[in-house]
């Protein structure tokens, strides 16, 4: 089976939220090195609240929208609008779809990526979540284009997200709170890239499990 039902896939977001909540302390610690140390706290608050409110038996579209609403209207911070826009654009892209195949998934994450780019105006190499997200979306598309299966493409996406996340270590931040540090921002992971890789990883694993 190369597709999953949209209905019932709301639970994917519950899983994503659990990963974020579990990594609250770690994400805040990373953010503390060159940022203000709140990334995990804010992410966990938003994702945790969304998990409480969404229906895991409902559609992924609905769950994405719940998550986006919580982030946008209650969480604030950088992540409210950035991830808020990402998940809302992902929900819009998915829309009323009954099922989610590789093409729909690819379009969905591409829409999410464009949402973040639109609102944040950052580029690859700026040491942000885009350094995990962009190569991950590209890797997914490339894998499908190369004739791989949906699960294979998800593996490629996850791996690219992680490589992209790790690539931020050597970068100097160009946007966001850490951008004022210049060379001092080099040498540590970017918090947003780390949470983004976690989110994409959780997506990949849960969908793979549902596909098999």
């Amino acid at each position: 089976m190369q597709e999953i039902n949209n209905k019932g896939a709301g639970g994917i977001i519950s899983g994503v939220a659990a990963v974020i909540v579990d990594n609250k302390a770690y994400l805040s610690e990373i953010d503390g090195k060159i940022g203000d140390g709140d990334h995990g706290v804010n992410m966990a608050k938003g994702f945790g609240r969304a998990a409480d409110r969404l229906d895991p038996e409902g559609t992924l579209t609905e769950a994405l929208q719940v998550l986006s609403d919580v982030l946008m209207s209650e969480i604030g911070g950088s992540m409210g609008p950035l991830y808020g826009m990402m998940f809302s654009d992902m929900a819009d892209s998915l829309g009323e779809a009954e099922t989610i195949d590789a093409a729909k998934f690819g379009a969905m994450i591409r829409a999410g990526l464009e949402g973040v780019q639109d609102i944040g105006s950052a580029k690859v190499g700026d040491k942000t979540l885009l350094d995990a997200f962009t190569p991950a979306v590209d890797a997914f598309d490339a894998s499908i284009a190369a004739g791989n299966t949906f699960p294979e493409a998800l593996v490629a996406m996850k791996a690219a997200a992680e490589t992209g996340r790790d690539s931020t270590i050597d970068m100097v931040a160009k946007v966001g709170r850490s951008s004022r540090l210049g060379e001092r921002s080099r040498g540590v992971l970017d918090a947003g890239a780390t949470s983004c890789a976690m989110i994409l990883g959780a997506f990949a694993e849960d969908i793979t499990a549902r596909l098999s």
Partner: protein
Amino acid sequence: MNAMDHSTKKLMNAPEDIIPEMIEGMLAAHPDMLKLEGESGRAVVAVDGPRDGKVGIVIGGGSGHEPAFAGYVGRGLADAAAVGNVFASPSPEQVKQAAMAADGGAGVVLLYGNYTGDVLNFDMAAEECAELGIEARSVQVIDDVASAPKERAHERRGIAGDFFVFKIAGAAADLGRSLDEVEDAAKRANAATLSMGVAVSACSMPQTLKPNFEIGPDEMEIGMGIHGEPGMRRAKIDTADNVTDELMSLILGEMELGEGSEVAVLVNGLGSTALMELYLINRRVAKILGEKGVKIHHTWVGEYCTSMEMAGASVTLLKLDDDLKLLLDHPCRTPALTVGT
């Protein structure tokens, strides 16, 4: 690493509730000045602030900087503050509710520190205001010299300089100036305000109680941000005079001040630095300015923009001209600042 081991003690209840509870405590303390409006529970509004025909002043940002931001809400200063979570910008919805409360039909000016999160959220709020027919102008405070070189001053962070920018804009609005004029006053204040800070110990998030950065027992960080963002350099802690000299030289390297210039001074404590120490810093600031023949119009020494229990201080200078002076001296009455009246 040492610092990471031990946790901070805070007198608090459940960390999830800390912001709504803080707001409750604040309203209970200042019922004559503050009230809450809108459903978000995060729009703190001046009891006698917003008036028909007056430009509304909306301030805001993450919590943890008390008395900033809601402490500056009141007659003659801000009409409303949007209160975010600890170190996180308020959401567009929260800002919008503050703006709606502050609007008297003449538009609103949104004032906040220049941080990615704040810019994103306030910009979205401004768009939503426009949809509601409320014209919203935005001014991002960029006073922190440590956070970017002069050529990229627009990238700088906003720290204690908020104090002066808010005060000036609030006065301009209170005097009945137009939206353009109030925005212009805020921008002129912003351009005339420079700050430099130093931190000697960390603060911690209520949720983690872990110091949000590491600093050795004999170290200080010149230029550290008010959320613990790294600054310009680490060094062994030095005397109050030497530290003040460094802060002042970075400000004076950029602010043109000579015989006869006039400034306002803010010596701000970050949270756990004693007032005694702040006065030592002010002593040196006054001495340096005196030696240059610069006139000090007014000085504030105290905790005006904090980082919870971080230890350290900042020095802010506002270079005055006649209009800024008039606006600075204009009366206001808020929990954190009373002028004249």
